[in-house]
C-alpha cells in the first residue's frame, strides 16, 4: 500500500492481514493498581480513572485491589452461566445464518462480560438502551432464548412481527429498549429517560451502550452535553472492541486520548475498565450507578475489549485484520478469565465447566427446535403480512387501512387498482 507522507495524519492500525498482531498501543494497568474513589468525588479529582485501566482479576486469576466487588461465588457462577449461554446462543445463530435460515446475525463473542457485568450491577427498574451487540442484556433481563430466535426468524412468534432485522430485540417488561440500526441514537434517548426519572423524583437510572466507532456520531456528543448540563442519572458505556467493521479505534479518534476521557471537558467522570474482566465491569458499573442514584450525575465508562468475531455475518474480518489477533489480545477471553478465577478460588472445575457447556448447548438447541415450529423464512407457518400496517400510529388511519385492503387484493390476485 502506498503510504504517503504529509502533515495529514491518516490513522493506520498496528496490524493488517499478514502482520503480527501488535497491541502495544493499549495502555494497561496492573490488576488492583487503580485507586477506587468515593462516589462523591469531584470529577477533577478522579481524572486518573479515565486513563488508567480498572482491573480486578490479576494474571494468576485472583481478585485483587480496591475495586474487587467481593461477589459471592454463587453469583459469579451465575454470571459465568449467562456468558456461556450468550456464546452458545451466538454460535448456534451464526451457524443458522450460514445455513441460510436467517438473513443476518451479529455475535458478541469476546464481549460477553460487558453486558452481563453491567446487567448484574444495575437494578431491574433501571432502563437499558443497548447497542446491537448487547444481546446478553436481553437474556439477563429475562427474554427467553426461543423468543430471541423467533425474532431472528421473523416467524409467527416474532416479537417484532417481521418488521425488524434479526437481533433488533426489545423488552418492555425487562426494561431493555428496542435496538436501532442507526448508530448512537439510543444515547441521547437514555439521557432523556434519565432526566425524566429525576424530574419525576424516581431513583431509577438509565444506561446505554455504543461502540468505539459510534463515538464519532453527533448523538454521542449531544448525549454527553445533555447528561453533563442536567447531571442526568445515566451511565454511558463505550464498548471499545478495537474495531468498527474494518476501521480500527483510531479512526474514531482513539489514538491520543482514551474514549473514557471524552467527557472530561464537560465535567463527566470517565472510567476506563478492563471489559473482559466481569468483576471489574460489575464494580465500575455499580460505582457509577450509586453515584447517579445519589445525584452525582453521569459517568462515561469505556469497556476495553476485543471483537472476537466478525462485525456481522456480512463481513469477513480476515480481509482487514490479522486472523490471530484475538489470541494476542492482552485482556484475553472474558469467559475463560472468570472460569479460571472460579477454579483457582476452588469454586469451579474443568469438569463442571464441561458439564455447563453441554447443558447450555443443549438448552440452545432445544430452544432452536421449538423456535422452528413457529416458522422459518422458508417454511411456514408464516406471519400475516397484513399486520405490516399495524402500529405505524396508535390508531390505524384511513389511508393505511385502504393500502392494507389493496395489498391483500393484489396478493390474492383479485385486484390491481393504483
Amino acid at each position, binding site marked *: 500500500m502506498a503510504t504517503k507522507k504529509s502533515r495529514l495524519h491518516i490513522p493506520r492500525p498496528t496490524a493488517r492481514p499478514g502482520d503480527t498482531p501488535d497491541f502495544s498501543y493499549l495502555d494497561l494497568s496492573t490488576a488492583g493498581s487503580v485507586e477506587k474513589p468515593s462516589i462523591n468525588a469531584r470529577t477533577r479529582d478522579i481524572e486518573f480513572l479515565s486513563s488508567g485501566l480498572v482491573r480486578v482479576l490479576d494474571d494468576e486469576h485472583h481478585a485483587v485491589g480496591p475495586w474487587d466487588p467481593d461477589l459471592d461465588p454463587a453469583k459469579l457462577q451465575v454470571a459465568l452461566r449467562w456468558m456461556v449461554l450468550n456464546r452458545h446462543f451466538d454460535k448456534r445463530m451464526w451457524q443458522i445464518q450460514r445455513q441460510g435460515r436467517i438473513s443476518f446475525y451479529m455475535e458478541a463473542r469476546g464481549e460477553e462480560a460487558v453486558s452481563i457485568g453491567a446487567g448484574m450491577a444495575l437494578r431491574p427498574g433501571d432502563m437499558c438502551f443497548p447497542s446491537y451487540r448487547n444481546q446478553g442484556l436481553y437474556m439477563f433481563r429475562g427474554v427467553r432464548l426461543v423468543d430471541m430466535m423467533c425474532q431472528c426468524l421473523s416467524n409467527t412468534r416474532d416479537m417484532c412481527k417481521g*418488521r425488524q432485522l434479526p437481533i433488533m430485540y426489545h*423488552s418492555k417488561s425487562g426494561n431493555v429498549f428496542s435496538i436501532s440500526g*442507526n448508530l448512537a441514537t439510543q444515547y441521547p434517548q437514555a439521557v*432523556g429517560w434519565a432526566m425524566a426519572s429525576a424530574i419525576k423524583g424516581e431513583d431509577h437510572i438509565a444506561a446505554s451502550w455504543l461502540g468505539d466507532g459510534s463515538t464519532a456520531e453527533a448523538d454521542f456528543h449531544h448525549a454527553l452535553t445533555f447528561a453533563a448540563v442536567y447531571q442526568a442519572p445515566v451511565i454511558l458505556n463505550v464498548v471499545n472492541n478495537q474495531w468498527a467493521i474494518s476501521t480500527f479505534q483510531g479512526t474514531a479518534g482513539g489514538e491520543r486520548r482514551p474514549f473514557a476521557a471524552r467527557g472530561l471537558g464537560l465535567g463527566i467522570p470517565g472510567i476506563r475498565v478492563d471489559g473482559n474482566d466481569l468483576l471489574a465491569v460489575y464494580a465500575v458499573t455499580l460505582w457509577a450507578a450509586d453515584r447517579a442514584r445519589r445525584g452525582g450525575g453521569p459517568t462515561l465508562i469505556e469497556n476495553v475489549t476485543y471483537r472476537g468475531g466478525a462485525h456481522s455475518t456480512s463481513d469477513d474480518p480476515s480481509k482487514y485484520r490479522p486472523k490471530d489477533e484475538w489470541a494476542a489480545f492482552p485482556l484475553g477471553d472474558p469467559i475463560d478469565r472468570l472460569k479460571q478465577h472460579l477454579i483457582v478460588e476452588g469454586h469451579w472445575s474443568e469438569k463442571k465447566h464441561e458439564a455447563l457447556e453441554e447443558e447450555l448447548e443443549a438448552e440452545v438447541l432445544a430452544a432452536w427446535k421449538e423456535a422452528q415450529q413457529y416458522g422459518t423464512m422458508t417454511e411456514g407457518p408464516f406471519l400475516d403480512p397484513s399486520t405490516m400496517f399495524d402500529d405505524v*400510529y*396508535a390508531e390505524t388511519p384511513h389511508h393505511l387501512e385502504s393500502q392494507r385492503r389493496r395489498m391483500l387484493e393484489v396478493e390474492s390476485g383479485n385486484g390491481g387498482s393504483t
Partner: protein
Amino acid sequence: MAQMNMIEAIRSALDIVMDKDPNVVVLGEDVGYFGGVFRCTDGLQRKYGDHRVIDAPIAEGGIIGAAIGMGLNGLRPVAEIQFADYIYPGFDQVVSELARIRYRSCGEFFSPVTIRTPCGGGIRGGQTHSQSPEAIFAHVSGIKTVMPSNPYDAKGLLIASIESDDPVLFFEPKRIYNGPFDGDPDKPAVGWSSHPKGEVPEGHYTVPLGEAEVVREGSELTIITYGTLVHVAVAAAEATGVDVEVVDVRSIAPLDVDTLSDSVKKTGRCIVAHEATRFGGYGAELAARIQKECFWHLEAPIGRIAGWDTPYPHAFEWQYFPGKKRMAAGIRSMMEIE
C-alpha cells in the same frame, strides 16, 4: 371567548395541558426564563417551574433525542425547535427513531413527543429563517404533520397534538403569529382582532388531527392550501372576483382527502398552493390525489403555486413568496382554460 393572537393561543394551549397533566414538559432553546424568541412559552416557567419548562443547550438533535427518552419514561414532552430551518440536526432522531419506535417494538414502546417549530417566510428572515420543510416530514410514516392558519385552530390542534399518543410535527407559520397576512407586503399589518378565528375559547378544546376545513365557499375554483397562504388565497379570490372555494388542509398528514375532493368535484378546477419549493413538494401529493379522486370532474389541469425552486432569498422575498399578485394571476389563468 377571548381575543388571542396565534402566540397567545399556543401559550394558552400549553398552559392548559401543563395544568391538566403533570407529565407534560416543555424543552427547547430559550423557552424557559425568556419565554421563547417568539414568546410562545412566556410565563410558563414561572408558573410550572424549571423542571417542566427547560432551557436546552443549542443542539436540536439532543433536544429531540432527549425528548424521545423522556416520552419513553412516561412524560409527554413538547420540544420547541426555534426555527424549522434548525430542525435538520435532529432529523435522524425524528425519522429513524421518533417515527419508528412504536412500529419497531410492535407497540411496546412509544414516545408521544410534539415538536413545535415556527416555519415559513414573509419576515425578512433569509434562507435560514424562512423555510417550510413540512413535505420532508409529511413523507415520513409514523409521524403526524400539522400546520394551523389561525389562533383558534392553533390552540385546538396543539392540544390535540400534545394529547395524541403519536408524535406530531407542529409547524407554526410565523408570519401570521400576530395577524392574518394576505400576501401584500405594502399593506399595513392587521391583527387577529379583525378575524373571526382570533376569537378563542379560554378553556380546553381540541381541533381533531386529520380534518381539513373549507374556509371560503365558492363554486368556480378550489384552492387547496395551508398556513399563511390560506389568507393569501382568500384575498386573491376577492381581488379577482372569481367564486373561489378555499380549503385549509390543516392536517398535512394524515390528509383529509374527502373534504378536498368534495370541493374539487363541485368546482371542477383546482390550484394547490404552498410556500415551500415546488419540485417534489407536498403540492405534488395533493395534485396526484385530486387527479385520482376527481379526474372525471376536472375542467382544467390542476395548477400549482409554490415558492420558486431556489433557496429562500433575502432581498427578493416578495418576488419569491407566493403572494397575492401571483395567486390572483394563477386564479385568472386557471379560469381562462376552456
